[in-house]
């Protein structure tokens, strides 16, 4: 371990070969790992007694059982190594593709530790250096070698932090995410505020059917369901079976299975039974122009699902498709909200609605996010 640290992790290649020998060096003795059936960690999460047969959703780190007894000194060694690795990045990612810099990575490391550590221990104990700490043990939710592997993935492969810990904090929720599911963006949080504003003055909308198209992790659907306060219902749809499983898991974790229904399918196809009845239709559809996909930040381009990102030429394909179908899906007075790329796309949508669907919508407008970008289009069905 000393060798690794003194290299200062300046040259990535050297570190890679160094890591090969590392796993034999730090593998904990087998007797430390208490054996527990794998099913246990996910079965404790479900309200029903037996776990589902196929579990293609992964259990996020913070929900796992802290069964890996680890000496504090080992944990401190890992943390010190990981900090150095993060520091060595500097601003190289930032410059190359707008990725994270060292200070962001250091903060992510703190959060990784928080998620991995047993609940009742203060993470800042990692900084306490003392004679006693070597003898003390803590329980981790994954093996220490896994922590090394995960951080290498973060830095070497630019695997998104949210996939590493298996969750994303979004609004006041903690949503499970994994490869195959788009990681909910901070900007999208505003859609729930827009929904809340609309239903605060409109009891009829609050009690109706809402739809979240392309739900991914279920973020918007869950946020909307909580805003509706038990009065209405939400149908969340997604083309991807992985997204459907993950969204269902998140819905269940928040006890909303009676309110939110997750359906698999493309856009309006799974919604034939509520045609013309929707009180609200919201979506964050893929809106990145195809030509921009290759140049994306590595975390996004290499790891997040293209299905959730690619919006075709100009990025407008799905946005326009949703505009076309919204009129027939919404009931009179129904609310419509879309997230877009920014000013250009928002204006295009408003123009389109004005030209091709004149008289169908009223009060159509573009709403900015907190960075001042005109990111949302909202309207009401006539």
């Amino acid at each position, binding site marked *: 371990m000393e060798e690794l640290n003194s290299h200062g992790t300046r040259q990535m290649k050297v570190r890679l070969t160094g890591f090969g020998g590392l796993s034999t060096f730090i593998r904990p003795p087998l007797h430390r790992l208490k054996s527990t059936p794998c099913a246990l960690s996910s079965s404790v999460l479900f309200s029903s007694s037996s776990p589902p047969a196929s579990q293609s959703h992964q259990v996020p780190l913070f929900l796992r059982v802290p069964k890996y007894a680890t000496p504090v000194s080992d944990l401190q060694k890992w943390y010190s190594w990981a900090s150095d690795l993060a520091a060595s990045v500097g601003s190289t990612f930032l410059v190359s593709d707008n990725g*994270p810099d060292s200070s962001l990575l250091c*903060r992510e490391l703190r959060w990784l530790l928080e998620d991995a550590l047993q609940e009742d221990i203060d993470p800042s104990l990692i900084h306490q250096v003392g004679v006693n700490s070597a003898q003390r043990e803590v329980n981790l939710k994954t093996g220490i070698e896994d922590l090394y592997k995960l951080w290498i993935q973060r830095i070497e492969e630019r695997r998104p932090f949210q996939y590493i810990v298996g969750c994303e*904090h979004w609004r*006041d929720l903690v949503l499970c995410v994994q490869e195959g599911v788009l990681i909910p963006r901070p900007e999208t949080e505003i859609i729930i505020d827009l929904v809340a504003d609309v239903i605060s003055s409109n009891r009829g909308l609050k009690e109706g059917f809402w739809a979240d198209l392309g739900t991914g992790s279920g973020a918007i659907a869950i946020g909307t369901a909580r805003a509706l306060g038990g009065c209405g219902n939400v149908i969340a749809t997604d083309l991807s079976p992985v997204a459907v499983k993950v969204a269902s898991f998140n819905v269940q974790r928040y006890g909303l299975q009676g309110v939110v229904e997750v359906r698999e399918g493309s856009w309006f196809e799974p919604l034939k039974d509520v045609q013309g009845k929707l009180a609200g239709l919201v979506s964050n559809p893929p809106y990145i122009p195809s030509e921009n996909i290759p140049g994306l930040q590595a975390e996004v381009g290499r790891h997040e699902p293209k299905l959730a990102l690619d919006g075709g030429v100009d990025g407008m394909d799905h946005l326009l498709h949703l505009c076309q179908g919204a009129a027939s899906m919404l009931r009179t007075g129904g609310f419509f909200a879309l997230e877009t*790329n920014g000013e250009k796309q928002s204006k295009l949508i408003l123009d389109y609605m004005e030209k091709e669907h004149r008289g169908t919508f009223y009060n159509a407008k573009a709403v900015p996010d907190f960075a001042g970008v005109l*990111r949302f289009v909202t309207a009401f069905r006539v």
Partner: protein
Amino acid sequence: MGMNRRFLLKNLMRAVNQLDPLTSCVTANRPIRRPILLSAFYNACLSARRSCSTVAELQPQLSPDLLKMMDQRLSAIEQRSACLQNLMDRPDISQTEYSRINKELRKLRESMELINELRAKQKEIDGLNSMVKECPDDRDMLDMVNEELRQAMTKEKRLQNSLLKSLLPKDDADERGCILEVRAGTGGEEASLFAMDIFRMYERYSHKKGWKFEVVDIMESGLKGCKEASAAISGAGVYGKLKFESGVHRVQRVPVTEKSGRIHTSAVSVAVLPQADQVDVHLRNEDLRIDTYRAGGAGGQHVNTTNSAVRVTHIPSGIIVSIQDERSQHMNKAKALKVLCAKLYEIERSRIDLERSKLRSDQIGSGDRSERIRTYNFPQGRVTDHRVGITSHAIDDILMGEDLDVFVDALLLQQEMDAIASFSANQ
């Protein structure tokens, strides 16, 4: 120790009540601090490591002057309550008028219940006293009546103390949580290190009390110290206990960086603000501007970031709060608003204080930020609070958040005594 403590307390309260200063302290500019009496009392308590009680639990004999003043106030309350009740019974009363009167009556209700109990008890005592006069020779009867008389008078005293407490000026903010701000003052790196020590001390104290301690921001300095650190502490009655921490804390010790072993003196300033919500400060969304960091490029789906820092600007006052360390934008924004509301609330309270009588701003807990309130001397292993003249010799325990109650309880007692003084002054 129990007997000695009661004896000490009784003597203390008798001395306090006999001191003419109860009225004459009003004429002086500052209320007389009674550090010597309190010191002796608390050092005795400290040696027995018992925490100290407040006025209402002591049941001392209240002085006749105080009782007379109290009685005047109580009669005034009774009259007001009766008058309001009459107004309310009028048949032609409007809805708004009714609810206004009801609101005031509700505020008086607690006092009225105690007053009625007191009056009833006093009537009972009168009755018992006349019984004593009527049969001075009947030994058994006399014993029984005297016993009942003694119990009734004890109860009367307890009621009088409760009523006194209810009449004393109270700070509504005492029930709230608080925002704690610690700032390194003079002393360079050593002050930063001590600032962090103090910050951790409050964190441990909060955990001990079962309060929630959420770090808002830490501006780190070189050697694991902090230039500034702030936290939101939530729980019942947090502000009432922590408000006394506002001021300058002075530390005397040999810094870790010091090679020659010389003792340095540095300072750390602490500010404690009561938490407030948007309703308290009449916060309007139109008055806020919220900014987030704009990634180069389009943002949204194009970017995967864990940076959800939020900056909230309150346009009318120009106050800016930035929060970045929560894991979601929503939580960063919520925290920023919490801090903003506390700051706005503090501004409003200071404004009101300036308008109130001078006596209140001289009292303990009024938060004069530049007042040097405590000295931590490491070589001698002691911590002294200068306002109440209390010294603790368990400096390590104090920094572990263990013994802060010693100071807090003494300061609370001092606050109550000051409140009694101001009550007397206002009659």
